[in-house]
């Protein structure tokens, strides 16, 4: 199966977008998930609902509001332009922000569940052994949450690869900038180039299946030894 340079570009762009989104969501999702799992604040529920919103909203709605916000007339876009920077509609950074928001529940939810399942007494024990909060998080919470972290990484990455609506609304179809694989497939289909659409679609199906297969295989192995007897 021969891929054109344009198709390679779309695949590489998709990988970059999904990789960066996953990285950002791990960094943002870990503290957020921790807070949601442990907080007794009255803000916990509204924040949880907000994080889960992308699960139920059509991606076009998210893309639409982000377009308004990040575009040249929007609060963020206009501010950036006033600072001499480009606005964020129709460029890579814009769709990265869109992806982070769109995939957020897929990262936060597994992390939150993993954190909530940790026995609080282990953290107490670590505290009495002189581990401060960051030490406890790194050396107790993270190792005990590795199943949840793995889930968050795989699902977030795969979900971002499969993203279409938000990017279509916010990023358009610019080669090398916003034309990810899903957009390219749509573009080919619109142009009745079914062979090319087939190639990319088959690649996505294969990739997604292999990813999930590997994930389930690893998950079984990773989780087995730390299940309490």
């Amino acid at each position, binding site marked *: 199966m021969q891929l054109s340079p344009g198709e390679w570009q779309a695949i590489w762009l998709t990988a970059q977008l999904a990789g960066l989104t996953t990285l950002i969501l791990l960094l943002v999702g870990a503290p957020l998930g921790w807070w949601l799992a442990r907080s007794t604040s009255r803000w916990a529920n509204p924040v949880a609902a907000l994080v889960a919103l992308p699960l139920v909203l059509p991606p076009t709605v998210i893309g639409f509001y982000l377009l308004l916000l990040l575009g040249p007339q929007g609060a963020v876009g206009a501010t950036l332009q006033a600072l001499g920077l480009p606005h964020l509609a129709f460029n890579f950074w814009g769709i990265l922000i869109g992806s982070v928001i769109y995939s957020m529940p897929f990262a936060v939810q597994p992390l939150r569940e993993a954190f909530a399942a940790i*026995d609080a*007494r*282990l953290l*107490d*024990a*670590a*505290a*009495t*052994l*002189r*581990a*401060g909060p960051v*030490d406890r998080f790194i*050396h*107790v919470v993270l*190792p*005990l949450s590795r199943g949840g972290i793995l889930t968050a990484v795989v699902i977030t990455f795969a979900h971002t690869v499969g993203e279409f609506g938000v990017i279509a609304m916010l990023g358009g179809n610019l080669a090398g900038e916003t034309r990810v694989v899903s957009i390219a497939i749509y573009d080919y289909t619109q142009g009745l180039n079914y062979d090319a659409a087939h190639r990319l679609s088959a690649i996505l199906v294969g990739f997604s299946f292999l990813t999930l297969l590997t994930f389930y295989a690893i998950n079984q192995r990773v989780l087995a*030894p*730390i*299940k*309490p*007897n």
Partner: protein
Amino acid sequence: MIEGNLTLQQGSFTLQTGTFAVPASGVTALFGRSGSGKSTLLRALAGLVATTRGQLCFKGERWQNDAWQLPTPQRDIGFMFQDAALFPHLSVQGNLLFAWQRAPAATRGAQEAAIANVAQRVGISDLLGQPSSTLSGGQRQRVAMARALLSQPRLLCMDEPLSALDTPARAELLALIDTLAQETHLPVLYITHAPLEVQRLAERVIFLADGRIQRIQSLADALAQVDSPLFADEGPVSVLHGALQARDGDGLTPFVHYNLRLRLSLPASAQPSATRLRIKARDVALATLPPQGLSVLNQLPVTVQALQPEREGRVVVVCQLIDGQPLLAEITAYSCRTLDIAPGQHLWALIKSVALLD
């Protein structure tokens, strides 16, 4: 001293210690029914409850001032939890390393020796490589004990460490805790609702009920009080201190304290190291004349010190043994009247049965 005055609210439960002060030495038992606030108090002392308010000082060092708390990691506390709370993602060795690597005077060079030493003392040398999730209850608590010791604490807190264990494991660990408390000279705060564990280990007792400290007594004072909560299960009990000697020609083992001498019948295989004997007041009979022709092994001269008021037709007579230790005898009010027992009187105590606390 550990002194202060702490309050905290958890749901409908309120802990209100009132002003307290306990010496920071030896084993102090926290005794009370479940729900009396023992665990909450111990957790508050360890700084594990953020909502604690009040004052707390440990050996003159401030640990709590109103809402301000010295963070737990800076309190140098070794804490043994009811369920051991071993880190399930680490091996036994990993759990011990976790403690050692964060201990103040720990060096990498001394690491192996320190771990080997503590592991040997608590009897887990052959478990080091095992995952912590495969251990039995008794093994888990031993590892927890080693982990707490390796963190080089200034205070050991134990929250019912034996409650999840079966009887043999419990006896073994109790002896181990006793030995280590004496060897390390660390002050120990020990939660239990078992009077036997108090009698076995404690130097003094903090009695808790309904979230309040009711009183703090030395074990001797607590045992001299006939209505002590320690006697709720089995009635009054005396605990005698002393040392076992080698088996004598009659096949009996002497238990000696100054000029006091009891003789015990122990199984030949037993090699106990107990320093405390437990005698139920009900197992002690009194005689006004030196008894003769009795099978009872231990017949000791005593002086009556006090008579407790009659309850349900029975009277507890507080006696003093020749070495000064108290011995309680529970007899019927009828016998007490007939024998005309009164303070100052010299009697013979017949001890029908004793138990070693080991």
